[in-house]
């Protein structure tokens, strides 16, 4: 190793570490600030039970706040989304995944801030949405910012984004290993050492900061000694399968709700306000559905805190209202609601179980935790992360194994029924399909346009066969593109088709009218599909108006494929 290489390596390691720490600190502090701001707003706006009980001598005021706050909050969210976010929708983990996976343009910093504001208003005013989605985007946003610096690091953007996300999750859950795994499992989708090392540093940074200045109680804290009977693992597996079904229902409701909002409420900015009003009306009757519901989540781990009918009612109400809020345009995530619905469903399962299967069991608490993680992992497609969250928060081996069984069975079923996660479904709707793995998605995301060649032979429609034959011979090609005087592609001429034709025949009469062509949007993947059965030299690429922009030789398609796949393999197998 020469002097220059050593210098390069030292620079790289030092810079990557610095990036990880800087992004880690930013992501972690942003997460803390966000969560604190949500709590502050909830207290200020009489959304949190803590604030509501203190205004207990003015029941009219509390009821008024219940109706007005989510409605006005929805209106503000609608306006912010309409006028401040360029994308006109809340930015979420799918945007972070896309930014990490593809080199294309990402939502701007301003859009990111506006989206965070919209999420803050949504959560602050009690909408039934989650906080982790916005936190993940917040972390990704800082990563993206650092990704733009000219530091001359390979895969700088994807690694920096993963660092931000890992720090945010590590801080929010106080679970650094879960943060680290989440960034790989959901955002990067590979485990190369080059990414692993800085992401670990960022997750640890988030954990340290969280421990120093963040003082929120853990998401859940349960006392559980051990799983008493081995047959209970069958019950955990069954619970997992049921949770997969619940995840399916959840996604169906989400889709239904956004369809309903599109059909019945024309102005986009007014939709969240309508959802807010409905949330307020239901909250007058079931206050548990307001906001993140951390009190409800805690009660679910206490035996006998709820009756069976209460649990059923809250599960249904929370499912419907979360779908309503998200479908109608409140900005927020799906993870916290999924955790809450899951834990309540798990508690319900654990409470009903002894009536159905009269055998001894370990009490409802373990079933509540299993339900929480099984549903949440199906929705966000992160089985490892959720298993690790249980482990890091409880440090209880038995509980983790139980949750693991439920999570895995839930994922096996939900993968078949709905796909890997809600995020992947959203990305697929936007044309980035991860169902067949990263390779296909990335080949789908790169346009073949990048491999365009301008070295080709053209012919005007009225030129004679002889002229074209001579030109092809001179330029040593077997194909000519027939265009009109505006450059519109009319057809393709192959040498073998004109070799015996009368010399003065106008070339257009012999041109192939039905031929393979690419356009500006054709991806590398599509170009490979289109090349099936193709016999020519190069494929013409035309603009939307039909203008010939250039050709893509067969060789270039193969080159594109090899280059991209090689790049991916390299990224996935890089050392530190």
């Amino acid at each position, binding site marked *: 190793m020469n002097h220059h290489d050593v210098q390069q390596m030292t620079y790289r390691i030092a810079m990557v570490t610095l990036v990880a720490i800087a992004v880690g600190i930013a992501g972690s502090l942003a997460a803390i600030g966000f969560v604190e701001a949500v709590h502050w707003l909830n207290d200020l706006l009489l959304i949190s039970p803590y604030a509501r009980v203190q205004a207990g001598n003015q029941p009219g005021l509390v009821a008024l706040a219940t109706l007005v706050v989510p409605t006005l909050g929805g209106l503000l969210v609608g306006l912010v989304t309409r006028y401040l976010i360029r994308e006109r929708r809340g930015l979420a983990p799918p945007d972070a995944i896309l930014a990490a996976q593809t080199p294309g343009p990402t939502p701007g910093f301003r859009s990111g801030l506006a989206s965070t504001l919209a999420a803050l208003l949504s959560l602050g005013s009690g909408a039934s949405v989650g906080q982790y989605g916005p936190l993940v985007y917040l972390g990704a946003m800082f990563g993206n910012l650092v990704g733009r610096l000219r530091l001359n690091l390979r895969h700088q953007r994807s690694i920096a984004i993963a660092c931000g996300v890992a720090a945010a999750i590590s801080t929010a859950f106080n679970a650094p290993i879960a943060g680290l795994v989440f960034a790989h499992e959901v955002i990067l989708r590979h485990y190369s050492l080059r990414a692993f090392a800085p992401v670990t540093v960022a997750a640890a940074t988030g954990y340290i900061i969280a421990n120093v200045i963040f003082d929120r109680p853990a998401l859940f804290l349960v006392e559980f000694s051990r799983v008493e009977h081995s047959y209970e693992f069958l019950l955990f597996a069954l619970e997992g399968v049921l949770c997969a079904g619940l995840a399916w229902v959840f996604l169906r409701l989400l889709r239904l709700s956004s369809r309903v909002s599109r059909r019945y409420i024309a102005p986009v900015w007014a939709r969240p306000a309508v959802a807010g009003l409905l949330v307020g009306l239901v909250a007058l009757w079931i206050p548990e559905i307001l906001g993140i519901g951390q009190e409800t989540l805690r009660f679910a781990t206490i035996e*006998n805190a709820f009756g069976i009918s209460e649990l059923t009612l809250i599960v249904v109400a929370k499912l419907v209202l979360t779908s309503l809020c998200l479908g109608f345009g409140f900005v927020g995530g799906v993870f916290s609601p999924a955790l809450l619905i899951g834990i309540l469903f798990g508690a319900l399962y654990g409470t009903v179980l002894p009536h159905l299967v009269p055998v001894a069991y370990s009490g409802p608490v373990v079933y509540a935790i299993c339900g929480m993680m099984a549903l949440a992992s199906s929705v966000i497609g992160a089985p490892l992360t959720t298993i690790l969250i249980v482990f890091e928060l409880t440090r209880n081996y038995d509980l983790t194994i139980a949750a693991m069984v439920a999570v895995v069975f839930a994922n096996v079923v939900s993968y078949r029924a709905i796909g890997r996660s809600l995020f992947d479904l959203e990305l697929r709707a936007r044309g980035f399909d991860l169902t067949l793995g990263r390779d296909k998605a990335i080949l789908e995301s790169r346009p073949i346009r990048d491999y365009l060649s301008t070295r080709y032979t053209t012919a005007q429609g009225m030129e004679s066969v002889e002229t074209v034959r001579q030109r092809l011979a001179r330029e040593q090609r077997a194909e000519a593109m027939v265009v009109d005087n505006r450059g519109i592609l009319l057809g393709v001429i192959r040498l073998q088709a004109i070799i015996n034709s009368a010399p003065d025949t106008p070339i257009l009469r012999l041109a192939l009218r039905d031929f393979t062509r690419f356009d500006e949007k054709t991806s590398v993947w599509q170009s490979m599909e289109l090349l099936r059965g193709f016999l020519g030299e190069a494929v013409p690429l035309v603009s939307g108006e039909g203008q010939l922009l250039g050709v893509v030789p067969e060789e270039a398609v193969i080159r594109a494929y090899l280059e991209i796949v090689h790049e991916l393999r390299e990224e996935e197998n890089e050392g530190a």
Partner: protein
Amino acid sequence: MKGPDLLVILLFSCVLPPQGWAAEQPAPDTEAEQPEPEVLTVATWGGAYEDSQRRAYFEPFTRATGIAIETVPYDGGIRPLKRHLAGGEVTWDVIDMIESDADVACAQELLEPIEPDILLPTPDGTSAQEDFMKGAIQPCFITHLVFSTVIAYNDEAFPGEKPDSVEDFFDLETFPGKRALRLSPTGLFEWALLSLSVPPEQVYDLLSTPRGMELASERLDSIRDSIIWWQNGEEPALLLASGQATMATGYNGRFFHARVMNDVPISVIWDGQLIGFNSWAIPRGTAQTEQAQAFIAFATRTDRMAAHANLISYGPTRDSARKRIGLHTDNRVAMQPHMPTAPGHMDHALMRDHRWYSKTVDLRERWFKAWLSEKDATP
């Protein structure tokens, strides 16, 4: 112009030893105008606590200023203060209140404002603002003491396994016997939830929901028939000593006194201790606000607060006083390990949320009344 004179005296008394000062001091102006000797009335909590206050605050104050101190019994709450003020003539000059009560009383304008400048700096010149615990200096009360409401048991009642958690307080099977609880909607529901392994940080969030209160009620139902109610702070130790109750909740200083001074076999369970604060305040309408302020300035001096902590195991809210805690004045027991804030005692402690307390007075009383009457309803 009574105020400045008294403050001057206090400033002096800070420098000079209080003993013997009374003889030398010039007769204050006030005495010339008022033929009777001045008397300041302090409403406070009686028992071992009042004794310690007498020795650390009242007697030295009288020696320093010539103003005698008389006490009237007060067991907490807003109602006794309201009743007294409604009576017309205000004879209570100083009152020692739980912080949340003081907060409510202040908001309801039952208290005189207190000038923060009356608080004296530490002997080494650190200002009171820096020295006092954060939030201790308020417009109409000065928080002076950290106390803790704890669960204690009679050691002889459980010769085998000893209780060591809040959960054990509710476990009548393993630890049989009567439970002594204060007849007041304070502390009960916190312990009920703590015993269901709710983490201390979330107790008040959960108690803010009807479901949380309902859970607490159900938990208390499980020991309903074994409860003995107490009202005065001295009672719990007595109930334990006499064997009427095997476990009791009470103020940590009183249990300390019974155990260390009177040799009663009482052990304290620090798990789930409820940390609270006491504050000095001046009832609105007293004729002696100047003297009352002078007393508060005197009683919050570093040396006085340290002297008090060396008599009973309640923590002072001044950093400088905390550093001066040593051995018990009478029997040389090290005081630090008995403080609520001692290392290890805070692991599972609950800070009484005084904002929540002051805003939920009505709710808690309603709940308590309803819960008590359920008892009559059941045959």
